[in-house]
């Protein structure tokens, strides 16, 4: 892979010309995207636009056929696997809530606590008071203090989403990739979630993929529209909603 020619200073994530195809179908077609530290970005697009594939490429689950994916300007993400990328500071939340159902809420968070990822480290791991306090903080943040010893599998759908977000926070990532967080939430929960994200955006970068326009609106951040594997439009929600192309391929339908 050739060294990227020029990466702008102060970018957190630099995606350029990324193409990924499956059996001739181009899921990503020369996609480019730049994230700066502390930025929150909403990504929308119709089914098959390549949103999930994009996340897979960034988090190392898929290798792109071509293109550049750089993190913090000098780390080539295509050379690392999922676990390494996670430890570099990129957290990911799945579309379907993905928590460890047979562990308690507390244990889920403990697992996500940064540090101590090695086999023998975890075998001899002891929870420090500091870490304990950190877990308590997050529990409060995601409003699951009183359910700390519940099995994660017995939480409601929205609570699972939150727990997963909580796990993301525990990892102390610099960049969070969040796939459809509002799916299956009540209106009230949705609003709270948007609130939470804004709070997070103060010291993290967030990429939020979402279908729910009300939620995107509530996030109040720049929007990127994907279509057929590449960027169709960027701007505020109002701007893209008025973009003729976007209306044609997506909103218009």
């Amino acid at each position, binding site marked *: 892979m050739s060294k990227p020619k020029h990466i702008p200073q102060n970018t957190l994530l630099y995606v350029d010309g990324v193409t990924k195809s*499956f*059996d001739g179908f181009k899921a990503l077609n020369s996609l480019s995207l730049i994230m700066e530290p502390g930025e929150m970005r909403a990504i929308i697009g119709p089914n098959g636009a390549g949103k999930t594939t994009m996340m897979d490429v960034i988090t190392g689950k898929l290798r792109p056929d071509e293109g550049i994916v750089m993190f913090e300007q000098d780390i080539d993400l295509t050379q690392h696997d999922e676990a390494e990328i996670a430890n570099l500071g990129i957290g990911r939340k799945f579309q*379907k809530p*993905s928590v460890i159902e047979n562990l308690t809420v507390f244990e889920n968070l403990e697992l996500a606590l940064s540090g101590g990822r090695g086999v023998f480290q975890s075998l001899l791991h002891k929870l420090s008071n500091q870490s304990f306090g950190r877990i308590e903080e997050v529990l409060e943040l995601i409003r699951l203090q009183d359910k700390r010893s519940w099995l994660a599998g017995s939480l409601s759908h929205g609570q699972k989403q939150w727990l997963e977000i909580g796990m993301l926070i525990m990892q102390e990532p610099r960049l969070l990739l969040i796939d459809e967080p509002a799916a299956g939430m009540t209106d009230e929960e949705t609003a709270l979630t948007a609130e939470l994200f804004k709070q997070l955006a103060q010291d993290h970068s967030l990429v939020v993929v979402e279908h729910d326009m009300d939620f995107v609106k509530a996030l109040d951040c720049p929007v990127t529209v994907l279509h057929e594997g590449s960027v169709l439009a960027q701007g505020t929600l109002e701007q893209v909603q008025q973009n003729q192309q976007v209306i044609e391929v997506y909103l218009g339908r």
Partner: protein
Amino acid sequence: MKTMLNKLLGLVGLVVLSFGVLADDWQQAASGLTGKSSNDKLAAIEAMLEFDDPRNAVALQGMLDAELYYVKADRQLVIATKSGRSFLLTDLQGESLGEVAKSKIKRITVNNRIRREIRSGLAMMALAGPDEDARFSAVRSLMANVEAEQLPLVEQRLVAETSAKVQDKLRELQAIILLENGDDAQRQSSAEFLGGRMDAPSRNALLRAQADEQNAEVLAAINESVARNQQLLKLNRAAENLYFGLSLGAVLLLAAVGLAITFGVMGVINMAHGEMIMLGAYTTYVVQQLMPGHIELSLVVAIPAAFLVSGAMGVLIERGIIRFLYGRPLETLLATFGLSLVLQQLVRSIFGPLNQAVITPQWLSGSLEINGVLALTYNRLYIIIFSFMVVAALWLLISKTFFGLQVRAVTQNRAMANAMGIRSSWVDAMTFGLGSGVAGIAGVALSQLTNVGPNLGQNYIIDSFMVVVFGGVGNLFGTVVAAMTLGVANKLAEPFTGAVLAKILVLVFIILFIQKRPRGMFALKGRMVED
């Protein structure tokens, strides 16, 4: 041998011994057959063949078929056939002598040495007979035991023989004799003639001559022919090995193709797959028991019967167990494994632990002889053809019929298929039944190759999984390629490593291959579904 030849010389020379010979003399000669030692019997046969008597053929054939008896009381030779608890007797002229109890008669036993003598006697009689194939094999049996004295006979037959095929064989025989006994020119032309002849006697004659030959020119001709033979031999052996590989591949393919449906298309791990094969084989046995007079047809009946039996069992399993376990493949694996134990024991309880005798119809026995070295056994040949027919039929079924469309629809998007009015649970049951039914058909084929017993399926289950996994799950074409590859690889390795090590190597190869390509040779591309 010599006397026999003399007699035959007389026979072909149309100067037949006079018919004035008394029947008593023949009986006298044949009386040795009732003796105890094999030497008595051999002497008797030789003596009998001195006579040109129609009873020779009857008696000799009767001995081969284990139907020649003698009456204990008067030592008369008779042909006896079993009829209920007693035996029906006819004398050697074909006249019925009525029914007697078993204790009144005694069978004339033969051993291999006697049998050989009988066969060569019968062959001699056939040499001038009307049947072309019989004449041909008579010449071949003469080739197996070449003697210089045969030359005049061979030359006489060459003149009289009308069939080109038999003539050619006679010439070969002539050349073998001349190669050893002829003059320089004859030896030279014989050596040239025998080049490229693959029958063992011809090859051996050349090799013997190579060691003995003094004349440089003749030796050169011999050397050339030997070299040519070696080349051809190598080629034929390679072809034979390839054929062995393909036939092993076909067996693997048949065993695995049902699994390619249940595992490959539906994602169900059916450890009882081997038992579906076994049920098919047992069905073949039952069919043969039900139609004892029509063994030749039995397989044709058994194929659909086995499909139905195994298929029905498959539907039963799917409805009874597997449908509760969709999406939990490891538990399906365990449940169906338990089921395989139950089915084995069930068959053992019903049919007993002994292997059952499945008879091979005549048309599946023997081999198609390409030349003296290369012969393709019919049963394997048919199985190769059959396996491809089965795969082709399946492919058509899946890709060209409405049922196949439904199957594909359900496996790809169940919800959508349901929404379009496809009864997905029905399709599941039918698909599983289809895979099991195909396994049953494989059982019919395997009943022709191996033991039909309760453990039949066990021997194929691991191989079947290997084939499907190696080929790539969900890919019929991959299964075909995988089966053939593994079969041929196994057979190519076998001469060097022996059968066991070859198999171990193939297994290790697959284990390593899976590390490299976890989804097999022809994996479906695309993002994998996780979580």
